[in-house]
């Protein structure tokens, strides 16, 4: 009886320990799978002038899907860095030799990601240790510099515009006089009245002319 009870306890203890270890292994597996530790992968690289803060461990995206991770970034020469990435073997058939790698970010404030744009069809599949073509990432500083020119131009334009509206307001120039000077406005008004009367007289003249025998046949 003593032994039986002990055996029951030992079985329950065994179940408990096994369960704990199983949960631990499952956790280790799923965390590791994300880092591509247990999947078959292949390695490709790309050379960038500027990696824009890309780090080892960042995701690699192909058509917006995470397919691998950045394994290593090393300075290749005084003006370039070589980025090595591990990509899942199952994605290989979709990435052609002329695929292009670029660097983007996950969100406004997010991590950097390496983005692989698919190559054109008909090309051969990529092979191990191939070097991908790259496009340089858009640098935030470049955007800011071009933005500054735009802002400078805009400020010139608005300066001119404000000068024009200023002179209109002070009654300078034709439009200004027309809009701002009461007497000129009156003159313009009477001009319009004269024009109206003139055109009315012309219409009567034309009516009469239609009836004139001199213009029959027209």
């Amino acid at each position, binding site marked *: 009886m003593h032994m039986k009870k002990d055996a029951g306890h030992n079985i329950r203890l065994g179940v408990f320990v096994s369960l704990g270890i199983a949960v631990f292994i499952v*956790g280790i597996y*799923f965390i590791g799978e994300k880092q591509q530790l247990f999947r078959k992968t292949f390695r490709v690289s790309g050379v960038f002038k500027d990696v824009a803060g890309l780090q080892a461990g960042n995701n690699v995206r192909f058509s917006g899907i995470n397919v691998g991770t950045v394994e290593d970034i090393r300075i290749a020469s005084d003006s370039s860095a070589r980025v090595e990435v591990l990509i899942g073997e199952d994605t290989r058939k979709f990435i052609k030799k002329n695929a292009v790698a670029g660097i983007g970010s996950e969100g406004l404030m997010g991590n950097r990601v390496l983005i692989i744009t698919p190559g054109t069809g008909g090309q051969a599949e990529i092979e191990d240790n191939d070097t991908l073509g790259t496009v340089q990432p858009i640098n935030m500083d470049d955007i800011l510099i071009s933005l500054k020119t735009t802002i400078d131009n805009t400020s010139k334009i608005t300066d001119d515009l404000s000068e024009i509206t200023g002179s209109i307001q002070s009654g300078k120039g034709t439009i200004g006089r027309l809009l701002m000077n009461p007497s000129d406005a009156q003159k313009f008004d009477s001009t319009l009245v004269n024009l109206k009367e003139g055109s009315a007289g012309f219409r009567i003249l034309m009516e009469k002319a239609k009836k004139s025998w001199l213009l029959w046949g027209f």
Partner: protein
Amino acid sequence: MQQSQEERGPLENGSPKEKQRIIRRIVSQLTPHQSQNSHLEGDIAPKGLPEAIPVSRMGAFFLKVSSLTIFTLRFFKEVFRPPYEFHELAKQSFLIGYKSFPLVGITGFIIGLVLTIQSRPTLAKFGAEAWLPAMVAVSIIREIGPAITALIFAGKVGSGIGAELASMNVTEQIDAMQVSGTNPFKYLVVTRVLSATLMLPILVILSDAIGLFGSYVAVNLNGHVSAYLYFSQIFQSLEYKDLLPAFVKTFFFGFAVGIIGCYEGYNANKGTEGVGKAANAAVVFASLMVFIIDMIAVQITSLFQN
């Protein structure tokens, strides 16, 4: 008949032991002026403070530190020396690990649930509710799972060990064991400390898993997130550097709870109040030790992560 013998403790099963125990009692009655320690062999650690020598509070503290250190060193000496008490180790693991699981599981579930519900308003303010599973997962795995489980463990197991060994001490069972030729340190202390060290990590892992399930339930209280999405979000946010240091420190938590419980029980004062004091001291000291180890662990891990 058999049942009653079982309940009386391991040393009273065999008749030769019973005899030795009686002999021991007679001896102690014949020499009442002798201290409890005097007849023990030289390799036995000092049992508590010698009451005859008055010491200052400071002195008492350092005496306690030194005797705890000797106790710990003795554990490491004994743990590698045969014979190994595997049967007793399994029994203690069952009592310490398996029997604590319901308590730890319920605590883990509630912590996961509550943490998620409490974090939601703050994240919702930033429009970052989608980050809720990731944030809760990292907090549970890195800190809250191990710390809460270790505290519950200290409360249940630390006090249990403290009270059990103290009452064995008070009823002179430990001394009797010594006389009967069983090494009480090996049989009582080593098995319990090892069990606590090995069982707490398993409890923490299970508690983490249950806590994440509780968090899943809480996420689904306001809006629907499929289990698959939830777990893929969790594993997206977790890395080995979150899981492994947290896992390693639970061994130290377990060891601290076990060794302190055993120390307090083994060195309890004679008398009935000694049992209560030992149990209380074991819980307080073990809980404090858990926090101190946690602080050291976070310093070490952050040192290596940057």
